[in-house]
């Protein structure tokens, strides 16, 4: 399975991951190589099998809906790359 340059660029766009031209070519070759190693799974018949999402049989875990204090806003905003008073400052989403 050989990936094309366009496919690699498409995946990067889906992930919102910027890549240099050199990275695109490197990943094109490496990902093609890795995907080839996945072909082995085709040898297994899994038609009627249920998928396993995780390995312990816990489902629909609930806890009581109790109000508890949140972390102080100042503590959270201390890591903000850019802030404006008590808000995270971001770039315009709609222009």
């Amino acid at each position, binding site marked *: 399975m050989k990936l094309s340059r366009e496919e*690699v660029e498409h*995946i*990067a766009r*889906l*992930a*919102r*991951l*910027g*890549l*240099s031209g050199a*990275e695109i070519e490197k*990943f094109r070759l*490496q*990902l093609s*190589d*890795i*995907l080839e*190693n*996945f072909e*082995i*799974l085709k040898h*297994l018949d*899994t038609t009627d*099998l*249920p*998928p*396993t*999402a*995780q*390995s*312990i049989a*816990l489902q629909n*875990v609930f*806890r009581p809906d109790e109000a508890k204090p949140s*972390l*102080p806003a100042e*503590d*959270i905003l*201390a*890591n*903000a*790359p*850019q802030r404006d008073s008590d808000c*995270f400052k*971001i*770039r*315009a*989403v709609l222009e």
Partner: protein
Amino acid sequence: MDDLYKLPLTQAHQLLKEKKVSSVELTTACLSRLTRVEDKVHACVTICEDAALEQAKKADKVIRSGETKPLTGIPALIKDNMCTKGIKTTCSSKILGNFVPPYDATVVEKLKAEKAVILGKTNMDEFAMGSSTENSAFFPTRNPWDVDRVPGGSSGGSAVAIATDEAIYALGSDTGGSIRQPAGFCSVVGLKPTYGRISRFGLVAFASSLDQIGPLTKTVADCALVLNVIASHDPRDSTSAPYPVPDYTKALIPDLKKLRIGIPKEYFVEGMQKEVRTSIETAIKKLEELGAEIDCDASLPLTKYALAVYYILAPSEASANLARYDGVKYGFSYQDTNNMWEAMEKTKQFGFGAEVKRRIMLGTYALSAGYYDAYYLKAQKVRTLIRGEFDQAFQKYDALVTPTSPTVPFKLGEKVDDPMQMYLSDVCTLPINIAGLPAISIPAGFADGLPIGMQIIGKPFDEETILRIAFTYEQATDWHTRKPPI
């Protein structure tokens, strides 16, 4: 008193309890050891000398009042992907290079509740993705048995810190072997508990259906003591198991009578290093001498599919988990543009290293329209088969024994440009995460002065049996008493 840092946890605890040494003395000894060896091995990314000594003073007060718990006053190091309030938590990534968490991970809360002493944070492969600690954005960690070789990964810093006695014990995390493989490469004890045994609240997420926290220690008894403290059900982690936590030290019985141990032949793979095979075969004979019933004809034929399943599932989950690093709420943020999408793309481009990008790409591909069924869903279905195969094996056996890794530690730089070769380093450990089982790596020999680890795999939530086997083997051998030439 200068070599207090050499003590295993059990002995350090005894001396503190009897007030023969103080936590300040023990902490000072570890810190000065750390300062002496850190230049050679680079195990730590953050050292909190002043805060650690403050914690030690407080621990000494508690000890004087007669309330010495097993971890009270004992210096520890924590892998840098577990949140520590007020202490940088970087995941050895540029993107979290300045991140200071506003809260503690549950495991860190547990240590603090015991009045443990936190010396600092250990180096790792960026976001725990790697098998050599070379993927750290800061610097590679070196193996103290041969500083030109890797310590394994991704918890390489934690394993090296224990091998060199920088701390009395350390915490690591294991998604596909990240505790056990470095433990094997550094000749220390490393346990990956059952999926769900320990809360991951505050552990920076890599692959949520596989990640687990566990101890790295000098002895098996130390491992049981740390596990006693960090194992718990936690309402803040809905995947933590609501089952009671036994006293794991009660499992330390030096007797293997009637225990049935299977040796799955598929783990003695082609391309496996001769010395590793010989050492593990010798160790298995030892287990037999000690009373275990060994079956060398155990078979797990699906083992060869595990690598593919893992490298679909883990990157897929990672690509979703790492979407949060958008440069808006915390972490590195590319500022030199007014375009929101460009800012996000550049933040990730300059914030993440090569392996993280590679896995985001791989995972995004496996989850993308048209490929989801062929890769992600297929892998999840094969996961059902792999777990079923282990369940079947455990109807016959109480535990399985394998090498931890097919080779001894490799040279720095040897595999960085060949991701498939690097991934193969975890071929014996990652099936265990896929099935969610507990497994421990313990020292089991050396080849030309380089460590070899033995992996013991148990039934879900039966950490006790693997601790018992590990303890019995350790009592009968002296591999764990050897120290690296550093």
